[in-house]
């Protein structure tokens, strides 16, 4: 077919113009909701009005972690390899090869999951999400929740792994961070580095960070209750509620193989200093902290990444209220389960 009209030469340009204008990228959703399916988890969380919410379900190559509550979003960052542990007294793990893996899914395990665009997580190893969100300042009552899967060697004890942290700049007197809060995994007995790992809450008291110890005996009254221990090969829905006014702090753990009602750990509150305007340093950190060590000696210069979380994570949300147990349970249930398509 010979081209015998000059205007055929304009055809590629005209089509390009139309496509540039409409920017079609495919005939199926590549992000977002399940066509025809209700987003049960999303509805449950959105209904409780989080002030920051990162589902961490971006596709590979993304550099922005979307804040479902609107801007500002977070930024994915990966530390250079190898990541140093810093001073041994800080108890931060070293990472030989840092990495960030987005969009993890396993259709071979549960076939229907391949149809669920919500079923993705991010894997951190010397990487993190950093988000500077003004709404997180001055929090005196809050809830933090995250779906986590620990992937480090649990037999190599004595280190701390940061799920998330919101901490202020180091206190001038101690040169160590003294405001904010963090969700960590670390030795269950802070004085015994070889004790098994447990999920822990640390808060700033104005001068440094303190761990909020679990009230013992545990509520379950079960001698076999291991406490909020980190389990190998198990996804855990972690939630922490804090109310300065009510002097109450509670750590909740929900796991598929646990009774969802029984794992509630009241914590012993201590003095708490929130991050306030003017003292925030690098905002919310998910997957590591960049705001210095938990322990002395203070860092002479800012440490870009400490306590890197090694494992998968999704559905990180922060609320400016202390959610009730039933609300959290609903999040956990919808986070772990979804309605599969009717067909």
């Amino acid at each position: 077919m010979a081209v015998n009209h000059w205007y055929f030469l304009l055809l590629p340009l005209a089509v390009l113009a139309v496509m540039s204008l409409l920017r079609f990228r495919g005939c199926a959703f590549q992000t977002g909701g399940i066509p025809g399916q209700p987003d049960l988890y999303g509805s449950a969380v959105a209904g409780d009005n989080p002030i920051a919410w990162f589902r961490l379900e971006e596709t590979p190559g993304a550099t922005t972690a979307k804040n479902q509550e609107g801007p500002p979003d977070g930024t994915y960052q990966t530390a250079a390899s190898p990541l140093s542990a810093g001073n041994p007294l800080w108890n931060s793990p070293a990472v030989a090869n840092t990495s960030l893996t987005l969009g993890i899914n396993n259709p071979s395990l549960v076939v229907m999951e391949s149809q669920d665009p919500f079923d993705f997580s991010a894997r951190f190893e010397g990487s993190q999400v950093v988000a500077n969100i003004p709404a997180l300042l001055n929090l005196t009552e809050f809830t933090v929740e995250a779906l986590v899967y620990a992937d480090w060697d649990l037999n190599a004890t004595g280190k701390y792994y940061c799920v998330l942290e919101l901490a202020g700049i180091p206190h001038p007197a101690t040169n160590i961070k003294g405001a904010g809060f963090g969700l960590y995994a670390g030795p269950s007995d802070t004085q015994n580095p070889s004790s098994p790992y447990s999920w822990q809450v640390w808060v700033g008291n104005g001068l440094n960070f303190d761990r909020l110890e679990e009230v013992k005996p545990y509520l379950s009254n079960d001698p076999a209750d291991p406490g909020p221990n980190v389990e190998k090969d198990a996804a855990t829905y972690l939630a922490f509620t804090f109310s300065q006014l009510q002097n109450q702090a509670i750590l909740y753990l929900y796991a598929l193989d646990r009774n969802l009602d029984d794992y509630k750990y009241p914590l012993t509150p201590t003095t708490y200093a929130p991050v306030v305007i003017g003292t925030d340093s690098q905002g919310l950190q998910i997957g590591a902290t960049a705001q210095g060590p938990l322990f002395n000696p203070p860092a002479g210069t800012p440490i870009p990444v400490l306590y890197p979380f090694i494992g998968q994570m999704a559905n990180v949300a922060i609320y400016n209220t202390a959610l009730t147990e039933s609300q959290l349970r609903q999040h956990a249930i919808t986070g772990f389960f979804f309605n599969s398509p009717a067909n």
Partner: protein
Amino acid sequence: MHNARAYFRSGTRHSSHPWDGVRRYSYACMLYLGAVSGIFVGTRFAEHRGLPALRVLAAMLFLFPAALVGSRLLFVILHWRIFRRDRARIWRTVEGGAALYGGLIFSFLFSLPLAWVLALPLGALWDAVAIAMLVGMIFTRVGCLLQGCCAGRPSQSWIAFESPNAQGVWCRRLPFPLFEAGIAALALVFAIRFLDHYSGGFLFLACLAMYGTGRWVLEPTREKVDRLAGWSVHRIISAVLVTTAAAVLFFWVLSGGSFAVTR
């Protein structure tokens, strides 16, 4: 029925496939190639049949964006529960989301005044548009296969092979986009080989009936089937279009209408 969300035990990563770098833009690239090729071939086909090439080209260039808009609109309608919550997403086309039948229906409606303005016979114009659409579909569905949109359902059949879905999850799937490209190719070959002597919309209606029938048969091989009250939406549309095309052809022939080519 509930399924456990056990993806945290995952070892499979959809980011690790060597094609993933190509995957991201494959749909847009193939849509572009398909549109350029389809419009060119369709226009030349119309010119071959005695229609003014410039006006046919202009018509097709107007119908192309109309088809894209229509396909998006049908997708939005079918997934209104999602778009109702976030209406800014309706035109966030970079997220993907389009339904071919919407493009066909909307562009047909748009062509009614367009054909009148351009003084083109509607039936003859749509004979050419049908050729353009079939050519374009062959390219575009290859793009779908590469990108993972319109993915086939997971299967261990001998005809299934490793391919992604829109979320980048790779597994053995039935190659639905290739099936659809095959329907388009067969319809195209049949139309050019056996229907070239018919015009006035006959070729268009015949192609519509062939594609609709093929789509109706193949719809269950898709991973995601859009349903309304349990019925496959695209099967319903296919059935309606096939029935309409067949009925129009039947009554047209019955009433002594002519499909002679005007050259």
